[in-house]
């Protein structure tokens, strides 16, 4: 190590925290205490009053002594979240509904904005001002691609309408044939 230190003398602090005893290729767990064997039994801190709905993991018997109250569950997303919390963190039925609830919650957020008379400024909320300042070409390309995709979808759908018209026309001919058949 002394020889190595000379090689790295240009790096301030080289080897200052080296600890040959810290070799995690062997199982190690410092500070193991007997208390750990006694289960969920520590002296709990004062409990925060529960003044909003808190969903808690079913992998624990209670609510932790403190918790955040940022956005209590509400609306349709809240119903989905309540469903998710019936399942453990080990289950797809916990996490996937939460992701779905997040997406529903976004729509609820927009509806709330309108209800409160606020029209969300999507351009500003997405920080496009910064992108316009530092990457104009990238932003223009992004919008151009999005416009092309939308145009493509519109053309596809309008073609589909025309196809439907053709189909209606064919049915008309079919009916004519049938009419001819009756006629003969």
């Amino acid at each position: 190590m002394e020889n190595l230190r000379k090689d790295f003398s240009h790096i301030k602090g080289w080897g200052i925290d080296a600890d040959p005893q810290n070799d995690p290729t062997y199982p190690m767990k410092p500070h193991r205490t007997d208390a750990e064997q006694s289960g969920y039994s520590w002296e709990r801190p004062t409990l925060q009053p529960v003044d909003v709905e808190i969903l808690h993991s079913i992998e624990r018997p209670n609510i932790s002594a403190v918790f955040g109250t940022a956005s209590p569950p509400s609306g349709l997303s809240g119903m989905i979240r309540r469903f998710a919390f019936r399942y453990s963190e080990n289950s797809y039925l916990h996490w996937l509904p939460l992701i779905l609830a997040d997406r529903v919650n976004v729509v609820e957020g927009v509806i709330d904005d309108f209800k409160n008379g606020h029209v969300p400024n999507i351009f500003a909320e997405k920080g496009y001002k910064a992108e316009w300042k530092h990457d104009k070409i990238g932003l223009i390309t992004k919008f151009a691609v999005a416009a092309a995709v939308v145009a493509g979808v519109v053309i596809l759908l309008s073609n589909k309408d025309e196809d439907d018209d053709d189909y209606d026309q064919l049915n008309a001919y079919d009916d004519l044939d049938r009419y001819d058949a009756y006629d003969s």
Partner: protein
Amino acid sequence: MLAMDYRGPKRVRVTQKPMPEIKHPEDAIVRVTRSCICGSDLHLYNGNVPDTRVGTTFGHEFVGVVEEVGSEVTKLKVGDHVLVPFNIACGRCHFCKQGLFGNCHESNPMATAVGGIFGYSHTAGGFHGGQAEYVRVPYANVSPTVIPEGMDIEDAVMLTDVVPTGYQAAEMAGIQPGDTVVVFGAGPVGIMAAKCAWLFGAGRVISIDHVEYRLEFVRNYAQCEAYNFRDMEDPVVFIKKTTDWMGADVVIDAVGAEAAGNTMQTITGRKTLLQAGSATALHWAINSVKKGGIVSIVGVYGPTDNLVPIGNVLNKGLTIRANQASVKRLLPRLIEHVQNGIINPKALITHRIPLEEVADGYRLFSAKLDNCIKPVLIPPSARM
């Protein structure tokens, strides 16, 4: 007060929100003077973390002045300027008693794998974060630390997450003198991990990323080799070749769920969320370390489907050597390193942005515009 407000994937704004209140006798209310946008905030910003509810405020890296304390707060007083570790820790459960402050069992009712984290979804406790003018800080007697006299608050804010996480990545790796250490990811944490690898006696440090300006930064800041994986046919083969076909002694995953570099992982992990994020960096780490080597993970992975619940491996600190940093445990040593000039955290800060422009800050950081390494937000009340 003004606060960042999450409205949906890639949509945030600043709105007026009610002032935070003391809800528990060990709470403090802190007036924020600096807060950061962290790389792991981008997982929330991109909508990849389940139970990220509209209306919440992000931000787990902040410093500020104590404005009010609860009846059981004895270690802080009004007027103290404190740095607040990102973990919310009670200090008395089994896990806190072992120094595992990132694994506290009394700060998050919503999940058992991860402890409470400021502004990090309801999966991490449903706390509002520090990208605001004021924030509620629970368990104020435990983790918040008065900023030492003479320390720049911009150095201090980096000690709330970035520096300890990078340092713990190197510590968990059990680096032995002379080891070859590879760090995947040259974001702020990866840069700091590369820097700290030297402090544990590494003999060679290699940083791998795909953004040129970040590679240039880590090369200069951490005095290490830095390579772009876009220039390689296969980064694993590159590392094998450059280590005389043995593999690295130690590999650090400082990337997590939003890794680039593999199309299938990008589609299944980042775009469709069919697994817990893109595990590209983790694959590369496991495959490029030598046999008997050590993989240290500090990159954040989501809790959803995957072949293994790697996010829980990180959050629970299992013996693969992965964990959220236990900031409180590391702070005394890191403060010493900053004071002695061994580490210069604020050199990572490239952008200082008014809180009101938080949406632009997120876009700047997430799209890697304007050579952004680390953005810091400054609330209006801290600019007076």
